[in-house]
């Protein structure tokens, strides 16, 4: 009896404390994200760790030597072929994100500022190409850019060229054109969202203070929509560096990108450690490039003041 009386207050306290802990906001927040978190942990973080581990090992025909080595990184960074592929991938992804943002901005601007009551209809129309598979969309560019394709027949029909041009397909430009189209909607949406957040009174205030339409756009609307431009650029840039289907289908010999090389190492060449080292290198470079993009756009934004 005595023991129970002595024992119960601390017991009650721990229970109260446990309840308080369970009801606290951080704990509830963690509980809420934990399924996604574990999913990401198992399917994303673990594979990445495996890849990173592999990049420090060596392949001996069918077995893997697990002694630590930086040889794979030496090959990845110094072999001209990988260096060229990496540069080409970066060049393609930068060009694609630049073109995508430049092409997406006016569309997002139009929907946001002149869409009126039909904004959601316009956004809906933009998603229509995405109802078909990515592969089909890439293939359709093959039809457009090909030797007997739509573009060539069109140009010949107009008498602009005499014979079909082979400069359209199976090269870097074909990859850039296809990727720019494929990622357009992903750039339009974030820019649209940030334009929606621009207070229209601010544009009026700029006009009231003497700015014409172009000036008020450059001094108010554009700087205030910079966050959307940054996310659009990153959303396009990061995945396109590692794109593998598009160069495979429309890139030909000149359009091969780093992802195709990585795929080859994990596939036919059967050199997983080198493939892993190439992956990690690409990942790091993409991170650096994304960071640099953010900094550059921020600097431009400051300059616009």
């Amino acid at each position, binding site marked *: 009896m005595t023991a129970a009386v002595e024992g119960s207050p601390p017991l009650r306290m721990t229970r109260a404390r446990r309840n308080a802990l369970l009801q606290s906001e951080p704990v509830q927040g963690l509980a809420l994200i934990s399924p996604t978190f574990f999913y990401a942990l198992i399917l994303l973080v673990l594979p990445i760790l495996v890849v990173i581990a592999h990049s420090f090992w060596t392949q001996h025909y069918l077995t893997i030597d697990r002694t630590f080595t930086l040889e794979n990184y030496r090959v990845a960074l110094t072999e001209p072929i990988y260096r060229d592929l990496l540069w080409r991938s970066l060049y393609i992804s930068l060009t694609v994100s630049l073109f995508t943002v430049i092409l997406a901005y006016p569309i997002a601007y139009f929907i946001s500022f002149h869409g009126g009551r039909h904004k959601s209809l316009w956004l809906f129309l933009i998603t229509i190409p995405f109802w078909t598979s990515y592969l089909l969309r890439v293939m359709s560019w093959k039809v457009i850019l090909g030797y007997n394709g739509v573009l060539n027949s069109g140009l010949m029909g107009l008498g602009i060229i005499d014979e079909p041009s082979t400069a359209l397909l199976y090269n870097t430009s074909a990859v850039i054109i296809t990727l720019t189209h494929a990622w357009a909607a992903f750039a339009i949406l974030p820019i649209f969202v940030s334009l929606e957040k621009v*207070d229209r*009174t*601010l544009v*009026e*205030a*700029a*006009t*009231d*203070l*003497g*700015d*014409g339409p172009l*000036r*008020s756009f450059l*001094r*108010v609307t554009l*700087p*205030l929509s910079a966050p959307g431009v940054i996310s659009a650029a990153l959303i396009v840039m990061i995945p396109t560096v590692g794109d593998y289907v598009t160069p495979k289908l429309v890139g030909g010999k000149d359009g091969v990108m780093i992802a195709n090389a990585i795929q080859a190492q994990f596939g036919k060449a059967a050199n997983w450690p080198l493939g892993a080292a190439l992956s990690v290198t690409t990942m790091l470079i993409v991170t650096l490039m994304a960071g640099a993009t953010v900094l550059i756009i921020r600097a431009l*934004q400051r300059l616009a*003041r």
Partner: protein
Amino acid sequence: MPEQLQRSMIEIKNVTRSYGAFKALDDASLTIREGEFFSLLGPSGCGKTTLLRMIAGFDNPTSGSIAVGGQPMEGIPANRRPTNMVFQSYAIFPHLNVEQNVAYGLKRLKLQGGEEKRRVEEALAQVSLTGLGKRLATELSGGQRQRVALARALVMRPKVLLLDEPLSALDKKLREQMQVELRRLQQAVGITFVLVTHDQYEALAMSDRIAVMFGGRIAQVASPKEIYQRPVNRQVADFLGGMNFVKAEIVEENGATLVVDTLGFGRVKTDKPKAFVRNGGGATLGIRPERLRVLWDNATAKFEVAGKVVERHYFGEITHLIVEIPGLEKPLSVTETNDFGADDIPVGTSVRLAYDPEALVAMAD
């Protein structure tokens, strides 16, 4: 009145703005004088903001014309008009600091030799924001944002400064302080101010003249005192504070005077309002609650009415008494300051009320 107040700055002639069948502004004509503090007063949806935006150039009249400083504004876009605006939301550029906000409009002028900096500092001093130039808009209080908006417009040295409900977002105390400051500032810079407001006290306290608007039409344009004391109709009278309305019958109408018979106040001779248009034999007499005075003990007055207190409402410095007068369909409301014990008059007491016949205003029915 100084000479400059007589010259006109804004001429609004028969301006109508329709949206389909709805007329936001219906045949409005108005002259605003140079250097005056002019208010557009009315309930929401009366067209006051529409009119202000048309002066600024953000909206265009469906018909009619607007001229600023003698120059017709038709076809001139907002960015080339000699007007600047203080927006209701202040519209402070969030990506710029205070100095950059104020200098925004000057940048385009490419002023030489530190002139821009000098003018920005002068404008900041005018609104008592000296030293806050480097702050970001997000680091400012509501009152400070308002001052930035004001400085940003004033620095442009416009012919007309337009203010769209600039004080509505501030709390009561700050609002009253800003009313005094705005008025002082306007007198210091001598620019024509056009203020849009739905707050009658704000308009009365700050303006040289007020236009009262209802349903897209201008009901009355006059000085605050005249608007308050001699409203042209019941709507205007009602909008500008409490008013007792008494039914009256016209006995005689000539030139400038009007003789009417009422049940509570007997036969009254009053000035005939300029806009008075007789509508049958009836009219309405109005008297403000504070123009009725309780007569204590045996005090007498030349003009008085007798009645009984039926309600009493205490408001701190004043008390509202509701007094029933035999013969009147509605009891009179009386405002008494609490220095003689009006707050102690028990409900049910018989009282006599003194009034000045000058305070009675005739309105057309």
